[in-house]
């Protein structure tokens, strides 16, 4: 693929990924949320996303260390993720009200986890739906090797 065409393809891929958010923002009518509350929510979402993915990554690093005979990999991974999570938490606590009106940071974390359930479930359903929609067009036998591709 020529270089210019590659850039166009990558730009098109990025634009395609942004289609959903752009449509949502274009359709959003009515009162917008308070920017400060939005900032606090964003900080909480970053933190929850980091913690949940870190837990998954630790499990993956355990499997990696086992398969590649690198027993220190999960320990190092855990240390790196813990230190970064601690620094990130401290920074977010200073820059925004992470705890809000919750009784403790852990209570706030679980509240935020429930709050993020629509996002997680929405993404979890959309990915298989998108893949199945792509699979509807499968033509394994109908296309002869010599036939020109059609869409």
């Amino acid at each position, binding site marked *: 693929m020529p270089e210019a065409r590659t850039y166009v*393809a990558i730009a098109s891929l990025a634009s395609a990924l942004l289609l959903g958010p752009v449509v949502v923002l274009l359709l959003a009518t009515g009162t917008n949320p308070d920017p400060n509350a939005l900032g606090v929510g964003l900080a909480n979402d970053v933190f929850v996303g980091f913690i949940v993915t870190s837990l998954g990554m630790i499990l993956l690093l355990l499997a990696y260390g086992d398969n590649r005979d690198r027993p220190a990999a999960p320990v190092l991974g855990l240390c790196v993720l813990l230190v970064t999570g601690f620094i990130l938490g401290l920074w977010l606590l200073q820059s925004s009200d992470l705890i809000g009106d919750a009784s403790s940071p852990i209570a706030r974390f679980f509240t935020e986890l429930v709050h993020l359930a629509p996002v997680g479930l929405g993404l979890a359903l959309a990915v298989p739906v998108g893949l199945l929609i792509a699979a509807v067009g*499968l033509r394994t036998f109908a296309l002869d090797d010599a036939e020109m591709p059609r869409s």
Partner: protein
Amino acid sequence: MEQALTAALLLWAPALLAVFGAFNLIGRGGGAWKVVTPLSLLLVVMAPLTVPDSTSTQAVELLWGVAVIGLPLLCGLVLMVFGGDVPVGRVPAWGRPTGLLLVACSAWLVVSWTPTFVEDVTLWDRFVVVMLAATASVSAFLFVLHRFFVPRRRSLSWPMLAGAVSASSLLVLRGVDGSIGVLVVAEVAGVFLGAGMALLLSMLVVWFFERNLPEPDDLPPPSEEDLERAAAIIARRTHNGGDFHA
């Protein structure tokens, strides 16, 4: 405190066990996990009945609603896929129309239905917006990927374009509240940012270990016997005009 402990024991601990058990069953699959995983899943699904006062059960109520629209949608799409031109597991001629009907039912539910058992209605609205927007993005991404990077296309790309257009149209029909729309986009961005940081750090750890792998040992020089055998193969191939199987 007692309520939090009940929620931890009857919802969060089973949820963790269900996720961990599912990974175990996909991998090596220990015998105990075949019993523990479905039991944990059952406890999670029954949470609105066992811990009705906890705010955490709102997520499970939402899960019930997701099952109501998700199951027919996924079943319908599977029937449409396997009712088409596939080498294995092809369903009879009724597969495609039935699948289309199920997908149409799901689409109608997505646009017009709000489950009464989900206490916090904004949770449902946010789920619908995220699901439709993400479906539009994934379908459009796959369409572009298919058009640009698949040189000999053995499949049709129009279903992906139709998926992106349909999801966007359903979003238009459903409508997006101003506060929910901006909030949802911010939430997805925040989760991706946090998850991306964790992924990047884990990749750095793997890269660090792979970079420090020792170099493979040098092979010993070929023996006289190896050289004679190689010379014999070259001579035979040269004599037979380069035919590999000669």
